């Protein structure tokens, strides 16, 4: 069976007389170049996001200091002209935009994302756990998508036109049609109206403010299914269709007949061969599911009242608390890119053609 990448590549002795395909050194080189390519792309994307974020931060009229002053003035304190000037110099607001960007990025790399105007505390403090929780919910949704879409997709293809197939197809369409935040809204309403409870939130009331402990983790896990399911629904429906369509295609191919002709059981033959082949387009679709899930979690967490980054972002934007908003957008973007990169690497592991030839 498949070994891990590097072992596979280095298992043979180097054979220049045309052994099993190419040189092992060539294998490693191709894999490495593919990896570097994806890494480079990820870096460029992060840079791009940072630039966009910076634009967003700077878009509102007036500069940060003006807003800060306005905020302080509204709450009663005041800032003298010299203090304002000092702040301006400190934040480099008297410099050209490019310099400001570089200085901001410099600070970001040191972990300093600035100060939230609304909360009067460092941005990192305000964000706190929320970013991780966002990732947890998104990952849970991703996991759920895989866990549901794969088996159902396979089933639908193998038992095409059966009742199960029709039911799943219909459910799939419903899942596609209802936007996730609407679904969340409807579920909240139904839960409230008929069960009298608030189905939102990620923690029971006892654990909301509690420090982290295993019990709190377990509480979190217990609350994850609903938000994860709401987020995952549309993606799952989509992926079921993709898997079904691709598997139907693959089931017709000659190598499936070969597998059966060897005497393999139906299930073994299907799972090992056509499913494996259909897994490629499936996996590459999943790679770009992650940004969609993170995106979706923003709105869904607003409706369900989850302590993730979504509600905070909205608040920050409405209040024009730009450092906070910018930091959230940047961090979200970067984590999403990392997630996508990981799925890319996983894809490389799945398809031997990428591994051995450097391309799909």
């Amino acid at each position, binding site marked *: 069976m498949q070994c891990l990448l590097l072992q596979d590549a280095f298992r043979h002795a180097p054979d220049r007389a045309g*052994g099993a395909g190419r040189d092992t050194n060539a294998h490693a080189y191709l894999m490495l170049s593919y990896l570097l390519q994806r890494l480079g792309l990820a870096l460029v994307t992060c840079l791009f996001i940072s630039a966009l974020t910076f634009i967003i931060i700077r878009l509102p009229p007036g500069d940060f200091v003006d807003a800060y002053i306005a905020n302080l003035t509204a709450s009663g304190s005041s800032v003298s002209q010299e203090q304002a000037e000092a702040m301006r110099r400190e934040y480099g607001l008297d410099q050209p935009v490019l310099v400001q960007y570089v200085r901001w990025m410099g600070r970001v790399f040191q972990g300093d994302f600035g100060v939230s105007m609304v909360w009067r505390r460092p941005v990192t403090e305000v964000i706190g756990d929320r970013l991780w929780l966002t990732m947890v919910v998104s990952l849970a949704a991703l996991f759920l998508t895989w866990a549901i879409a794969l088996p159902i997709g396979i089933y639908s293809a193998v038992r095409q036109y059966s009742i199960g197939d029709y039911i799943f197809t219909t459910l799939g369409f419903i899942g596609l049609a209802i936007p996730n935040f609407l679904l969340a809204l409807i579920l909240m309403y139904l839960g409230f109206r008929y069960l009298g409870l608030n189905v939102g939130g990620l923690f029971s009331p006892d654990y909301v403010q509690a420090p982290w402990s295993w019990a709190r983790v377990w509480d979190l896990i217990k609350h994850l299914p609903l938000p994860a399911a709401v987020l995952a629904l549309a993606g799952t429906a989509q992926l079921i269709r993709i898997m079904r369509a691709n598997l139907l295609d693959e089931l017709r191919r000659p190598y499936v*007949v070969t597998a*059966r*002709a*060897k*005497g*393999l*059981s139906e299930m073994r033959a299907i799972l090992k061969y056509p499913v494996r082949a259909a897994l490629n387009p499936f996996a590459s679709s999943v790679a770009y599911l992650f940004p969609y899930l993170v995106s979706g979690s923003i709105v869904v967490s607003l409706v369900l009242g989850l302590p993730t980054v979504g509600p905070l972002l909205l608040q920050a934007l409405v209040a024009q608390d730009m450092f906070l908003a910018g930091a959230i957008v940047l961090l979200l973007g970067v984590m999403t890119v990392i997630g996508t990169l990981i799925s890319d690497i996983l894809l490389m592991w799945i398809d031997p053609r990428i591994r051995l030839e450097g391309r799909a």
Partner: protein
Amino acid sequence: MRLTLMADEIALAVRDLAVHFEMEQGVVRALEGVSFDLRSGRTLGIVGESGCGKSVTARSILRILDRPGRVVGGSIVLDPGSSGSTDVLALDPNAERMRAIRGGRIGLIFQEPMTALSVHYTVGNQIIEAVRQHSDLSKQSARDRAIELLREVGIPRPELRVDAYPFQLSGGLRQRVGIAMALAGDPDILIADEPTTALDVTTQAQVLDLLRRLQAEKGIALMLITHDMGVIAEMCDDVAVMYLGRIVEYAPVETLFAAPRHPYTRALLRAVPTILAKPRQRLATIGGAVPHPGARPVGCPFHPRCSEVIEGRCTAAVPPPIPPGQAGASCFLEVPG
């Protein structure tokens, strides 16, 4: 695992095999009462144009016929002479007994080496899987056996090639791998479904040589499906000519070529271009086209294209089938009266 059969003994007896395809336009009768024997150590050639039912026959024997195809009648008996004879059609296609037969007693060699092997697994992986399916060998022993098989089919440096992926091998090598895989279960019957059609002539010759050698060594009963009369002439001991799901002529190969009895066979032989023909001589063709099996002509299926059609008889009824085991043609020209 095969039983030791005497040479010439019947390994597989197919009687009156009938297969239908239920399509939305209606029922298509793909095979109508096909009968033949496969004898160990001998090669039976099945020849015919596309759509005549050759591949359907092969799939039916192995019980891997896809929906909407369905076997509706007949019998396929393994080891008919012995006490352990089994009608393959009576078995559940997915049950262990049938799966032991599939690959273990009857092996299948494919037409398209490019697509018959999965690109996601190494050649070795796929052969080892077949070996372990039909034996109790450990992983290491199975791997050794796989390398052995690759060597037998003439692949150079098999200990390296065993870890290659199919897309790293040439077409000829891939076809050999296909043969090795078919042999992995040590079958005594091999069905080769157009094994050389996708290959160039040189490779074709090599693969045919290989098949002949293997048959001689192991006493395998070979069923060779092809549309190439040259391959038939070179490889086969007996020939069955199929048309629209029926066997229209059955004869030992020399008889078939020397004295064909069915008008279709005669037309096929005439259509083979020969180097001995006069220059600028027109190629002979068989007029018309094979009708769709769903739109079968009334009476003898070949009569619309037949140059020796007998009005009244050929249009009215289907000619009687050839008695299994004997040479003959299913044609009213053969029937007195």
